[in-house]
């Protein structure tokens, strides 16, 4: 498959029931066209791994509105009453994970680690059912790696090869998830010739990106 693909082709690869990591924080840094197309194709029973579910009508919140999600692994759903309602009605399974633990579990998945040791959550409900490990007299929780079938990434710039650069607070989970998705699909605000993004400014190397979403064709 070519790396640069149409939006429809990219999303057609995602089967119902797939696990998808989606970058973004309250919708900032969430790929808007990939969300649109996932809804248009009506993917069902998705497991979404993301920081949050934003708000109704915003970012990942739109997948929740469209009832495409069976399970959410996130640190916060408090800004989205629809997620909470679907959770209380038993329609969505929500796994809440402290934010640092969530990002590090994703990092562990992408970086080939067997898990992470953290003190966050010790002595709270987060500890339930998990192993604790003592290292040099300090107690830690063992948190396991997270990976996903797909990662939907949003960048400020991509070059023709798929090297990615992010901007300001839209970076958030994106570069880490780009390491942990089996198939990494990148959407960029602009696609520029190779070399426009200098090597030091590349935050996600093109080798990680399986599909780069082509620009929309505009008629007229």
């Amino acid at each position, binding site marked *: 498959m070519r790396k640069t693909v149409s939006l429809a082709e990219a999303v057609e690869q995602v089967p119902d029931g797939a696990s998808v990591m989606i970058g973004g*924080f*309250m*919708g*900032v*840094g969430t790929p808007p066209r990939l969300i649109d197309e996932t809804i248009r194709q009506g993917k069902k029973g998705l497991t979404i791994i993301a*920081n*949050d579910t*934003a*708000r109704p009508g*915003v970012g990942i919140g739109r997948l929740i509105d469209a009832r495409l999600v069976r399970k959410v692994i*996130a*640190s*916060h*759903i*408090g*800004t989205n009453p629809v997620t*909470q309602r679907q*959770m209380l009605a038993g329609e969505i399974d*929500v796994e*809440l994970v*402290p*934010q*640092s*633990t969530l*990002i*590090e579990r994703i*990092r562990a998945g992408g970086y080939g680690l067997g898990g992470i040791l*953290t*003190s*966050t*959550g*010790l*002595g*709270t*409900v*987060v500890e339930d059912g998990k192993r604790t490990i003592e290292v040099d007299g300090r107690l830690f929780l063992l948190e396991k790696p997270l990976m996903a079938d797909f990662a939907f990434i949003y960048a*400020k710039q991509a070059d023709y090869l798929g090297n990615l650069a*992010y*901007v*300001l*607070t*839209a*970076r*958030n*989970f*994106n*570069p*880490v998830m780009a390491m942990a998705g089996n198939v990494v699909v990148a959407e960029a605000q602009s696609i520029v010739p190779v070399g426009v993004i200098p090597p030091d400014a590349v*935050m996600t190397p093109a080798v990680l990106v399986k599909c780069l979403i082509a620009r929309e064709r505009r008629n007229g």
Partner: protein
Amino acid sequence: MDDKTLIAKRVALELKAGSLVNLGIGLPTLVAAFLPRDIEVFFQSENGIVGMLALPEEGLEVEDLTDAGGSPIGALPGAATFDSAMSFGLIRGGHLDLTVLGGLQVDEAGRLANWMVPGKMVPGMGGAMDLVSGAKRVIVAMTHTVKGESKIVRQCSLPLTSTRPVSLVVTELAVIEPTSDGLVLRELAPGVSVAAVLRVTQAELIVPAQVQEMPIV
């Protein structure tokens, strides 16, 4: 002065020049407005910035520059942005000097509960557990009571945010410091008596011979 302004003004006195500070959502966000003018503080937002600033004026919003609630912000000269792993490395790794958080309950062991009310409110912990476990100092800024019930309790009945005791609790009535001996009443709001605080506090408070008035104007 309303209760929230009073709490925010008192907490603002705890911010030190040159420190790295994370303000939680809600009441703690007000603290930034009462910072003494001659003190420069670096505010972190956990979505990935050090050096955030209130949006200088309407019309300057950048869609890729927001606070943790998704609202547009500005940035100080010298601000830095980064991914979520570094953002939480700063918090969990002990690089954050101070966090100010809202609270539902604080108990005699200084433990905070602020992230859920079982059966009623399950928003998720977001970064709260990391902030309480990792910041060098943790200040809880909250009203003393809710619907007449004390939020300073013998033992938290709500799920804990962390077992690590917080550093200070500031309410509209008092400043209370958790110590190894228990909760110590350090300051009283202007016009508030020790008896008035004890009356609305479920937890046992240690009352020193001298309890000073909050130094706020």
